[in-house]
C-alpha cells in the first residue's frame, strides 16, 4: 500500500515568535519551522498502517520554500519512505486556491492508494486545501477521521468521522483523501536509527514547470484573495485557574458561571 501524506512546515507554535509582517501576512522568518501538528498525527497513522501491512511506502508531499527539506527530514526520521517537495520562487504568496491546484497537480505525478492530510494547519487554520485537492482530483474526501481502516482486497477504506455527538462511519473506494486530527493518536518521537537514516532518504524536488502550471496563475499575483487587514487577537483578560479536587472545583466553577448569569 502507498500512502501520500501532505505535510506543511509551519512556524513553531511553541516558539512564541509568530509575528505579522508589514504586508499583514505571517512573518515566517521569525520562528523556526516545524511539521504542522495535525500532519504529524496523520503521518503517525500512515506509518502504523504500513508497519501493520508489512510493506508499502509513506510518501511526504510538501509545498514550501527551498528550506522545506529541513522539516521534511524530521518526518522522514519518524519513518516516512521518501519525500516530494514542490518549490518555486513564483509560489510565494499563493492563496489556498493556488495551493490546492499545485498540490493536486503534484499528486497526479505520484501513484498511491490513499492521501492523508491534517484537518488544518496551525498557521492559516483555513482547512480548505485538503477538501479542495479531493475535489480537483475527483477523490472521495473523508474528514475528521478518528480511525482509518483500509481494506486493500476490497479496495475500500473505512473511517470514523468525529461529529458533535459521537461519530459517523464512512466508507469510500480507494484512492481516497482522508483528513485527521489528534484523535488518531500521539505521533512517535523519531528513533536515533530513524534520524540517522533520514540523512540518506530521497527528497525529489518539483517546480511549477515540472507540474505544467503557469507561474502567473499562482503566487501573490494569481491570488483570488487579498489580505486587507490583519491583527493579533486581543490579549485575554486575567485567567482564574481552579486547582482544587474535582468536586470542589466543579462547585466553584458553577458558582462562577452563576455569578455571571451564564447558567
Amino acid at each position: 500500500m502507498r500512502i501520500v501524506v501532505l505535510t506543511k512546515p509551519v512556524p513553531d507554535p511553541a516558539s512564541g515568535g509568530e509575528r505579522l509582517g508589514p504586508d499583514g501576512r505571517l512573518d515566517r522568518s521569525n520562528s523556526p519551522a516545524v511539521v504542522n501538528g495535525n500532519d504529524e498525527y496523520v503521518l503517525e497513522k500512515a506509518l502504523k498502517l504500513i508497519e501493520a501491512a508489512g510493506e508499502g511506502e509513506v510518501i511526504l508531499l510538501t509545498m514550501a520554500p527551498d528550506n522545506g527539506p529541513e522539516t521534511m527530514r524530521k518526518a522522514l526520521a519518524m519513518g516516512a519512505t521518501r519525500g516530494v517537495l514542490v518549490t518555486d520562487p513564483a509560489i510565494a504568496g499563493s492563496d489556498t486556491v493556488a495551493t490546492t491546484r499545485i498540490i493536486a497537480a503534484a499528486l497526479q505525478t505520484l501513484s498511491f492508494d490513499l492521501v492523508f492530510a491534517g484537518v488544518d494547519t496551525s498557521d492559516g487554520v483555513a482547512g480548505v486545501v485538503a477538501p479542495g485537492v479531493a475535489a480537483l482530483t475527483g477523490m472521495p474526501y473523508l474528514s475528521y477521521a478518528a480511525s482509518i481502516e483500509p481494506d486493500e482486497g476490497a479496495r475500500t477504506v473505512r473511517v470514523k468521522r468525529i461529529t458533535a455527538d459521537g461519530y459517523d462511519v464512512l466508507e469510500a473506494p480507494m484512492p481516497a483523501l482522508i483528513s485527521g486530527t489528534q484523535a488518531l493518536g500521539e505521533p512517535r518521537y523519531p528513533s536515533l536509527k530513524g534520524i540517522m537514516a533520514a540523512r540518506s532518504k530521497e527528497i525529489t524536488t518539483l517546480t511549477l514547470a515540472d507540474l505544467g502550471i503557469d507561474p502567473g496563475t499562482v503566487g501573490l499575483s494569481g491570488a483570488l484573495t487579498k489580505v486587507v487587514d490583519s491583527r493579533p487577537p486581543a490579549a485575554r483578560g486575567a485567567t482564574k485557574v481552579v486547582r482544587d479536587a474535582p468536586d470542589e472545583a466543579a462547585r466553584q466553577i458553577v458558582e462562577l458561571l452563576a455569578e455571571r448569569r451564564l447558567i
Partner: protein
Amino acid sequence: MAQVTSASRAQGLFRLTDEQEMLRDAVRVLADDRVAPRAAEIDRTAEFPEDMRRLLADHDILALPFPTEHGGLGGELLTVCLAVEQLSRACATTGLILAVQELGSLPITLAGSDEQKARWFPKLASGEQLIAFALTEPEAGSDAAAARTTAMRDGDDYVIDGSKRFISQGSVADLVVVFAVTDADAPRHQRLSAFVVEVPRDGFQVTRVEHKMGIRGSPTAELAFTKLRVPAADRLGEEGEGWSIAMRTLDRSRPAIAAQAVGIAQGALEVATAYARDRQQFGQRIGDFQQVGAMLADMDAGTEAARQLLYKACVEIDAGAPDASRWSAMCKLVAGDTAMRVTTDAVQVLGGYGYIDEFPVERMMRDAKITQLYEGTQQIQRLVIARSLLGKGD
C-alpha cells in the same frame, strides 16, 4: 600576524545540524521519561543499572560512536557528546555508560585492524557487550607511562601479569583494553602496548569494586591479571604503540567527560531555578532576592560557556585539529570546574533542602566531583594546555 586560536579547517562558527538537534531532543525526551525517575535509586543502591544499559542499547544510543559498516550509527564526536550531556543531565551514572563505551572502543577505532573492528564493534554497537579502558594502576595514575603491568611474548600469545585500578565498568565489561609493558628498556613512551582482553578468562580477576562518593551506580574496579594469555592477534597496533594509542584516545574521550559535566551542571541549574521560582520566603520568591538571582545567572552563564567550548572542541577534534590535545583538555578543564561550582551553588540555592536526598542536587554535587578527577585530573589538563602553548621543549 597574531596566531589564530583555531589551527584546523573548522574555523569560525559552528552550529548544530538539524540532525544533531533531533538526536539531542530524542535523547532528552528519553532521559526525562525513563532515566531521571531512576537516578536517585541508582545512586542509593550503588548497583550497576542493567536496565539503563538495556534502555540505551534498545534505543541505539550505544550505537552512536560506531561506524555504520559495523552496526553503528556513525555519529560525530559532537553527536556522541550531545547524547552524553542529555543523559547526564538526568543521571551521571547513565551518561557514563555511553562515555565509557566510547572511551573503551576508541583504541580499536584508532589502532584496530579492519578484522578487529569487524570482530568487536557489532556487539559493542548493539550494547550486547560493554568495554572498559584499563590504563591506570595503583602506582601509575597521572604518570600513566610508569605502568608496571607486563605483557611477555610467548609464541602466538602474550602473557599478562599485573593489576589495574579505578577502571570504570571494569567489573561489568565483556572486553577490557589493557595497556601493558612489552619492552621495559624502551624509551618511556614506547614501553607500552595495547591489548583487547575478552573476559572472563583464566588469569583475570576483579579484586575490588570501590565504594565511591559519586557516580555510585558505575562500578569502578580493580582488576588483577595473573599469567593471563592473550592471542597476539588481539594486540592493537604495533608493539610499543600503546602510549600513543592511549594519549590519542584521551584526546577524543575527554570531551565526553566534559559533556557529562555540562549535563550535570545543566541538571543542577534546572532544579535550582525551579526551586527559586517556587520557594517563598519573606513573602516573595527567593529567586527575586538579588543574591539568589545572581547565583542563578552565574550558574547559567558558566554552564553555557562550558557547553559552547565543548561543542567547539568536538568540531575541532573531528576536523583533525593538530592541537586536539589542547581542545580536549580545555573543554574538560572548564566543564569539570563549572560542574563543581554550579552544583555547589545549586545546593546553596536550595539551602537545607539541597543537603538532603529529597532533592537531587546533593547527588549532582557528588557526581560532579569525579569530572575534575578522571581521564586526567584538572592539574593534568592544565599541564597539557600549557605544553601546547609553550611547546614541549624536548
